[in-house]
């Protein structure tokens, strides 16, 4: 019989091995799913994981990988700081939306002025928008002890309403014949978050994601704040003795996560998306939660996890159109990844023991 036995300490090795294991199990289970749908599982898995990287059209897919992974990484790193300290910001999607609204707001207010300072100002405004939105659950938690999970999540829906209102009201393109949606910032050079080198997918948001990953690594390993964050997550009581002020930590972690999510939204609206529209947000803020955990809340792990997640999206879409798989099957496939990750995570904290069956 199988029995679970708690490890005295979580296994270091397994915490690195389990994400890979989860991916492998997802491939097998996903393959079974695709086979059940009447598709060749090997071809499907190859289309998702191999073709975008090494296939005929990799020259297009590789840059797209960066475009898709950039916002995921940026948001996930912000979230990981809070998650490490046990602060659960689930509303990054809303902070992402507010960042886009603030960033685009600056651009639309300046239109059609061309000046070098517009884009930097948009970045600051975007970060500020996300920061403000994250401060609502943070301050409510600090002041009144509300649950930040619920408040931040609910604020996502408020943000979506605000976004819809912007796209048909305040930010509607005056030259758009009454149709919803703002001006397209891709056609406004001073505000356009263009690719830095054409056809590489490398825009400022991707650069920011890489820089932030490095900064987060330094923060967590070399800075007293990083120490406090880790300590609070691992031993809250000890943290208090060590002089950590929990309210301050909540404000700092939520604020940072909000600002980074806001920046991600701003880079997206000024670049790949181009405009404020009701369907602007496509779930980066929620997917980033998966990315944060898949990356073990470690900055470099998150970079890898973000790229992997982006790959399942891009490969998943390729499989949809190449193999005519239904979109829902791809979503199930992505869901499996988180499911199996959480399941095999058990192995980090527990070991499986084979015991002899006891006779009654």
């Amino acid at each position, binding site marked *: 019989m199988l029995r679970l036995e708690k490890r005295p300490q979580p296994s270091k090795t397994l915490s690195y091995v389990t994400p890979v294991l989860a991916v492998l199990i997802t491939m097998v289970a996903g393959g079974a799913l695709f086979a059940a749908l009447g598709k060749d599982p090997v071809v499907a898995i190859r289309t998702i994981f191999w073709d975008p990287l090494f296939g005929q059209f990799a020259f*297009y897919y590789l840059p797209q990988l960066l475009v898709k992974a950039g916002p995921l990484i940026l948001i996930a790193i912000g979230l990981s700081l809070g998650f490490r300290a046990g602060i659960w910001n689930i509303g990054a999607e809303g902070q992402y939306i507010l960042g886009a609204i603030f960033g685009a707001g600056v651009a639309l207010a300046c239109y059609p002025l061309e000046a070098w300072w517009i884009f930097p100002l948009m970045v600051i405004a975007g970060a500020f928008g996300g920061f403000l939105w994250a401060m609502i659950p943070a301050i409510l938690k600090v002041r009144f002890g509300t649950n930040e999970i619920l408040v931040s999540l609910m604020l996502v829906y408020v943000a979506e309403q605000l976004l819809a*209102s912007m796209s048909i009201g305040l930010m*509607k393109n005056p030259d758009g014949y*009454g149709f919803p949606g703002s001006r397209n910032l891709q056609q406004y050079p001073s505000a356009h978050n263009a690719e830095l080198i*054409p056809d590489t997918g490398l825009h400022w948001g991707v650069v920011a994601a890489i820089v932030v990953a490095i900064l987060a690594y330094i923060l967590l390993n070399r800075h007293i704040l990083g120490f406090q964050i880790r300590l609070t997550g691992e031993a809250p009581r000890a943290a208090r003795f060590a002089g950590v002020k929990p309210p301050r930590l909540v404000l700092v972690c939520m604020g940072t996560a909000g600002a980074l999510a806001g920046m991600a939204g701003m880079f997206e609206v000024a670049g790949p998306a181009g405009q404020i529209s009701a369907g602007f947000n*496509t779930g980066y803020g929620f997917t980033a939660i998966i990315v944060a955990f898949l990356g073990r809340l470690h900055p470099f792990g998150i970079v890898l996890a973000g790229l992997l997640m982006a790959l399942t999206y891009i490969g998943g879409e390729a499989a949809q159109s190449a193999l005519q798989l*239904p979109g*829902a099957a791809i979503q199930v496939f992505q869901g499996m990844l988180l499911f199996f990750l959480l399941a095999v995570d058990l192995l980090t904290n527990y070991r499986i023991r084979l015991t002899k069956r006891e006779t009654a």
Partner: protein
Amino acid sequence: MHMKKRTFLAGAASAIGVSAFGTVSAMAQDKKVKVGFIYVGPVNDGGWSQHHHESALAMVKALGEDKVELVEQDNVPEGPDAERAMTQMALNGCDIIFATSFGYMDPAMNVAKKFPKVKFEHATGYKTADNMACYSARFYEGRAIEGTIAGRMTTTNKIGYIAAVPIPEVVRGINSSYIHAKKVNPDVEFSVIWLFTWLDPAKEADAARTLIEQGCDVILQHTDSTAPLAAAQAAGNVIGFGQAGDMIEYAPKPRVASIIDNWAPYYEERVKAVADGSWETHNVWEGLSTGMVKIGEITDAVPAEVKKEAEDMIAAISSGAYHPFTGPLNKQDGSVWLKEGEVADDGTLAGMTFYVEGLKGDVPS
């Protein structure tokens, strides 16, 4: 193999850019016309996306599976994901790509620039290029028929309207049905509920019940589900109309007629044009006359003389003898919009965000 590697290197070095895209799509071409479709919802949503999907299937059937290869992708969010989906299709050798939602406009434009040899067709937008056309339907013509029947058949003189998203198409529909209901019944009043969604059966049912409680005995809908008809049926003496699809399962009552989106003939024509090389860009807006908008069977629940009146109007609109927006018409604030006998131009209609005189409330913004 050699080819693949070269293409990859070209892209990676980013030296060729646009021309790399062009080469690939030309390379992948074969004799069958490869047609791509992207949909914003699932293909079984019972509404917008499903009708495009079914029309696509009808097109393939009409032209023959040996002539056309269909590639579809559903649940494609509007924005960068749509751009990637279309690029993917173009890379894989699609000759023509139909982008079936308004929000695909700018993404389609971006992809069209990269693939000058691939044709793009965008539904319900306004931007065109040498290789990008747009097409849309004059649903307001159908609304005129609905309004006429509604105005004749209401006994409480209260008509409920479940509006979807505040864009010109929806506002046009409200105006058109109101104008024609009012024409046959001067006492008629409209209550409009905005749902800010195209498809949400629960919300639609709630809205329908609210309107019925307020005394409305005719429910018009611009949302896509059958929930309002189900609510009308439950209430008893309330009628409604099929929207986007025929919704014939609710006939003869509460569904007394319907507005049907029928894209199949257009898809057939355009794919055929690609096959014989005659495809050219355009911006078309078709209605009852070409069959892009159809009125589903008017049931016996409608009195014969009303049915006759509706059919006459269908004939008049189809032949061009009558335009649903013909003056004298004032805007909601009382200012003159169209003088006696004046007909609205397509530009104004395309961007219509105002109510006509007599409607209460505001277009949300």
